[in-house]
């Protein structure tokens, strides 16, 4: 369990994250939503241990994150950052295999090869395993990194580490409709399998469909949290995004959704 309490991060006199309390528990997919510059990615970087908070604390199973070394953390959580630039000619498979290079992972290489192929298959990339990463499209690159994180967690499971955490920063940003579904379906499957999953999402509709809990951030603070119907509402979103928002619900399941507002709707 990852627990953040009164988490604050300031840089250059600017407060990017302010007094955030957040708990990630196994089995749940939490989506962080909010306007540009709300502090979503900064919060994810604080929770992953990449940034040290100015005040407040993040604890993993009751122990401060700062007291884990990089390798111990990497055996407990995997992170897919927003953008990764790689200008060396790795194949897709080799990038995924980097996920198994965490210090302390000792699974046999033949087994890891198979697991890597499994992760590539999960994100729909098995056919291009031996293509150069540098030749892939933006969406394919993004899915390669998701497969890498999945392999990292799969090997961690094999090493019988305690329950682990998956953190995704806008994993669907350059994906088409089918692959958005594929990736978030997998994120939810990971949660159902006992992982704590955190995803920063720009697309409110995807968050409403896939997340167990939505956390709406605005100017570094949590403006609202709860189930999709609790967070996706006109007043809250209009106030947070600074524009007029009209929400609606799907006829059958009653899932809330948002369309961009113009005079036509």
């Amino acid at each position: 369990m990852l627990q953040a309490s009164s988490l604050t991060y300031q840089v250059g006199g600017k407060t990017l994250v302010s007094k955030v309390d957040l708990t990630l528990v196994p089995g749940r997919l939490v989506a962080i939503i909010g306007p540009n510059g709300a502090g979503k990615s900064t919060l994810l970087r604080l929770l992953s241990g990449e940034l040290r908070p100015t005040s407040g604390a993040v604890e993993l199973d009751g122990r401060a994150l700062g007291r884990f070394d990089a390798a111990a953390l990497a055996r407990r959580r995997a992170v897919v950052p927003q953008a990764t630039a790689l200008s060396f000619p790795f194949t897709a498979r080799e990038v995924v295999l980097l996920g198994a290079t965490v210090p302390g992972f000792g699974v046999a290489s033949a087994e890891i090869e198979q697991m890597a192929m499994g992760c590539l298959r999960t994100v729909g990339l098995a056919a291009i395993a031996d293509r150069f990463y540098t030749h892939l499209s933006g969406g394919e690159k993004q899915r390669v990194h998701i497969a890498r994180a999945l392999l990292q967690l799969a090997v961690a499971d094999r090493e019988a580490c305690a329950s682990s955490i998956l953190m995704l920063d806008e994993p669907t940003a350059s994906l088409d409709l089918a692959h958005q579904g594929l990736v978030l379906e997998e994120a939810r499957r990971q949660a159902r399998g006992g992982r704590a999953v955190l995803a920063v999402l720009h697309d409110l509709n995807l968050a409403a469909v896939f997340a167990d809990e939505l956390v709406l951030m605005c100017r570094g603070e949590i403006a609202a949290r709860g189930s999709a119907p609790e967070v996706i509402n006109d007043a809250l979103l209009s106030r947070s995004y600074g524009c007029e928002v009209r929400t609606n619900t799907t006829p059958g399941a009653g899932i809330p959704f948002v369309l961009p507002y113009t005079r036509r709707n």
Partner: protein
Amino acid sequence: MTSEALALPDRKKPSAHPLSTAQLVVGATLLLVIAATASLALGPTGISLGSLPRAIASALGMTADASAAREQLVLIDIRMPRTLIGMFVGASLAVAGAIMQGLFRNPLADPGLIGVSSGAALAAVATIALGNGIAAPLLQPLGVYALPVAAFVGGVATTGLLVLIAGRHGQLMVGTLLLAGIALGALSGALTGLIAYASDDRELRDLTFWSMGSLGGSTWPKVLAVTPFAVLIAVMTPALIRGLNGFLLGESEAFHLGVNVERTKTIAIIVTAASVGAAVAMAGIIGFVGIVVPHVVRLLAGPDHRVVLPGSALLGATLMLVADIAARMLVKPAELPIGIVMAGIGAPVFLHLVMKRGIGGME
């Protein structure tokens, strides 16, 4: 599920790279053995390897024959240390290039390009010029180690200065680093020039040696002086493999994969400065090795540092020996500066690779 998810990968093609790690390492080792044998066997005197048993006998004091003594001088006192130092210089420059490219995530980073070599050369030149003057009390206790240690310190100082200039919020800004490196390189070059301006004829010849490179001054005491550096590099470099692989994805990704980022950077900077400093102290400034060799290895066997680092060491040593054989054979009995030969070999190969495949597979 999309259709591509159901397609199975081509099992017969385990990797997109032409050679496996084992193939590259075995091939490069064979090439190095051939080059080292040729380096011992070839020279302007025409003494061949067939004389080696007699030369060894003479070295061990088992014969007083005058021609055996001459064979001993050429084979054991000249060619052997020259071959060993050539291997060290080539391997360490290539490894330093590979490490810098991984650290800065830029396939064009090179100790020569970002001023580390110039900084090391400046320190070495200053040591020569001031060694008998004001710096004597500091340098004389170091003996034969004075030059490599000075060049090492020069390399560390330049690298440290670069890290200070290009570091922001714990991240190295690659663009700033390259530009600052060019500026520092120019400054070191100017200071070296200033020392040259104030030098007499004999010192000037030494300075030419530093700026164009040569293995001509190799002796056994120099082999001895460079050995601790070779050991340091050989012991520390393997610790970089995992970290540099992570760095290729970026510093934060490396951290997410469990890499101790600051430790990796520190080791990388120490190894680079030691490699370049000692190489410059032994042979002056020799370019292209640090860029060309790691590129060739990546094109052949991929960018994984498990193959890039040992492959670069082996092929770098081989390339340096080949260039040195050319340097001493082309205009015998005179000798070309090896930096010129290396540029003559390296630049066309590099251009060919860039035109054929793009920069290390980059498009």
